[in-house]
């Protein structure tokens, strides 16, 4: 009898404990990978009245293009076309491609591109052309593409002139019999214009016993370039010559480049491409022995003029439209500074 009672009690306990509700949450919050669904696309701007020429540059934070922009705007307003100036905020080839894609979608009349990544941009240019958009390049070309023309510096020539300026200074300093070490700064190694400038430079300096100790990339970043150079000089001061295929390192205030300045004072010779006001200013402070500049005004003007012809059905016979060069040396720095507008940007 007692046993039976015990068994019953145990069954009761098991049952009661089995009935206990251990699972308390019925609403679960789980995480999922975000997934969004495009619902509606904004209608594209009405473009029937006025023709649009869109410039796509390398980046907005690089002021070198401002001169070209200003001139292109001026010419556009004279010709009665709308001009756009588009670029990723900082150098970003993917962003640049996206912008070109959006222009193809919008079916602007003309696109003028300063190509960042030649390989990737070429098929995009061809796509735009196949859709009836007129495409040209400026400053940085994509020669293998179906673009109508290129406006810009003859980069080989620019490099060559830079090389010749260097040779001249070396000879003046009577160093041309020595074995010389040269540091080269480029933008992006793959960039065609940079490669051409360096080729021209090499050609011009063939007569010297040059050894390229290093080739550093600025990635077209004017903020990083001076720091990059400064750090490089601090760690490896044992080179004799410096050639920068662009003006990136001299945009920053010259006061900050202590090691470079010391290297310069110890007899370093520097030749820099471009002659913007801040560059000439820095050069005048002793940071460069020679400058070879591009004519961005001319680039802007020629790009708009020729593109205007194209979108109006006219022909542009030349495919390579070169703009002129400007030379700076300690002799004419002051004069150049007088002529140029100081930038109040940086």
């Amino acid at each position, binding site marked *: 009898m007692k046993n039976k009672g015990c068994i019953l009690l145990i069954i009761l306990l098991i049952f009661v404990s089995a009935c206990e509700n251990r699972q308390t949450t019925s*609403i679960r919050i789980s995480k999922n990978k*975000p997934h969004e*669904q495009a619902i509606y696309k904004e209608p594209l*701007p009405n473009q029937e009245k006025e023709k649009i020429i869109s410039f796509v540059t390398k980046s907005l934070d690089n002021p070198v293009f401002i001169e070209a922009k200003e001139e292109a705007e001026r010419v556009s307003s004279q010709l009665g076309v709308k001009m756009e100036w588009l670029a990723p905020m900082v150098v970003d080839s993917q962003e640049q491609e996206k912008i070109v894609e*959006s222009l193809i979608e919008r079916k602007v009349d003309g696109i003028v591109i300063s190509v960042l990544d030649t390989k990737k941009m070429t098929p995009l240019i061809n796509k735009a052309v196949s859709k009836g958009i007129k495409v040209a390049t400026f400053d940085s070309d994509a020669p293998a593409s179906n673009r109508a023309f290129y406006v810009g510096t003859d980069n080989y020539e620019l490099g060559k002139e830079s090389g010749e300026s260097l040779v001249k200074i070396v000879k003046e300093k009577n160093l041309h019999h020595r074995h010389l070490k040269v540091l080269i700064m480029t933008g992006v190694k793959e960039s065609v214009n940079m490669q051409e400038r360096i080729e021209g430079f090499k050609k011009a300096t063939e007569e010297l016993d040059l050894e390229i100790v290093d080739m550093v990339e600025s990635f077209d970043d004017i903020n990083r370039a001076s720091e990059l150079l400064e750090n490089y000089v601090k760690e490896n001061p044992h080179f004799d010559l410096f050639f920068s295929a662009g003006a990136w390192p001299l945009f920053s205030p010259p006061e900050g480049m202590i090691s470079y300045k010391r290297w310069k004072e110890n007899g370093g010779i520097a030749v820099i491409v471009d002659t913007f006001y801040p560059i000439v200013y820095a050069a005048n402070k002793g940071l460069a022995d020679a400058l070879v500049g591009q004519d961005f005004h001319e680039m802007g003007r020629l790009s708009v003029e020729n593109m205007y012809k194209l979108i109006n059905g006219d022909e542009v016979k030349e495919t390579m439209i070169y703009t002129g060069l400007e030379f700076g040396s300690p002799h004419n720095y002051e004069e150049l500074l007088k002529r140029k507008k100081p930038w109040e*940007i940086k």
Partner: protein
Amino acid sequence: MKKWLKWIDLYSIRTKMIVCFLALSLIPLLILGYLSYQYYINDLQNSVNVYTNEVIERVDKNIETYILDIENILEIYDDYYTIQYLRLNEAGDIDGIQKYTVRLWETIQLIKNMKSDLVDIRIISHTGETISAQGVYWSDRNDPFFANIRNIDEEEFVVKSPYIDMFNRNVFSIGKKILSPSLSEPAYLIIDIDVSLLNRIVNDIKLGEKGYVYFTDRAGEVKFFPVDTSHPKFIKELMNNDRLLNAEKGSFEEKVEGNHYLVNFKRSEITGWNIIGVTYADELNADINKIRQLTLVIAVGSLLVVVLISVYLTNILTNPIRDLRRTIKRFADDNLAIRAQVKTNDEIGQLASSFNDLMNRIQWLVQKTMDDQVKIRKIEMKALQELIKPHFVYNTLDSIIGLLEQERIEEALDLIEALGMFFRTSLSHGKDIILIDAEVEHIRNYFTIQKFRFFNRFDTKVEVDEEILNYETIKLILQPLVENAIYHGVRLMKKKGLIEIRGKEKEGVVVLEVIDNGVGMSAEKVNHINNVLTGLEKTEDENEYFGIRNVNERIKLTYGIEYGIYFKSKPNEGTSVTIILPIVKYEEESYV
């Protein structure tokens, strides 16, 4: 099997008790179960509603917070440089504007980097010329968004629902207008925000397994839908739902293609969007089913437990009763020695105890009856031996011989006949109980014989009421009394005596009297005899008063001590013996 069937005897107390226990415990259990189940379901639905509303409220708050942040940015952006840029733009000062262009790009970049999800800041002049993080380009002035901005106050802002912009960015926008005395027409300042913000706010939210939150605008167009849904039709139907479009806040149930959805919504004050939470009712049902199953399991489990407990309790209560029943059955089957084993102190224990007393009594009575029977047999034997004494037969036969010698044939024949009848009634076919009629007949024969033997020295008279003749009596009760009346009464008289037999029904008993007018007895003797008969006195000699004691005892043994005989007598006046018998209708079969 039979045993099992017997075990679940429908009419047994045990079954009734089990049913009672089950009813008592199951009815409240079922009511409780049902009520708590209903309550839980309601509670669940309420929780879902409350939860969804909370979620929606939170979503609204998050968006509001972000948008108010953006509004602050809009405020600080309306500064000198922007106005200068717009002024120069309006003036067409290409030369002067460059500085401000670059400056604006820089600040846009700065703020973009500072504020997450901020995709772009656009400043649009009245001509549609736009400056943003993408550069400078032309916007469509006919965009209704601009018209909306134009129509509001300077301090207010307009929210544009998610869309894909010119640069294929998935954004929603907040815009305000820029007014300045130096501008001929207002310009627009617009901040584009990545919808991934909405994604982050909304996408982590899961209402149940499949439920989600999404936005629609005032027109019911889905503007942002975070979940890859395969029910576009469902969305459409929900979006066009009047309840959703016309109310600020609420919830309803909607059935689309056989699926139930619980929809909660709220109109966001700041954006004007509807924030809609959709819960799949079938998930709720899954929970409800789970509860239902659980309730069922509990119910079945409880039933099992209750049945077990009922059976257990019933057994405790009914086992003694069944033991008692078994005991009684065995007792009935002649096992008189068996007694109930009293274990409990409750009513059943008391019952068992009383039962045992009853058993004892019955056993005692049975034993007594058996003893009485034996006694009666012995007394009867003795009575017979006493009545048909050899010298009585011898004398009678002698008388018959005398009559025959005197050739009084008729008289001899009468006597022989009387003697024959006398023997027949004495034996009565071996019966103990006979009709009073037969007993009276017997005494008449006896009278015939004795009157002849005593030469008619006494007369006889028989006065028995007709109605008592059919009642029963034990046999041979009158003859010993008549014999006494003859031998101790009338025989000693000088004159002729009289012996009367009277019989009647009186006060519920049968009264038979044997009355003689003989010599009678002293009062002491009568007392003594009566005391002996009632057992108050004992005789020293066993044979003293043998005849009357025999009659008296047989009557008492057969019918009870309240019956029997008693004497009345006065010297020289006679004696009367009264026999009291119960009124029992004679039934022949029962005494075979």
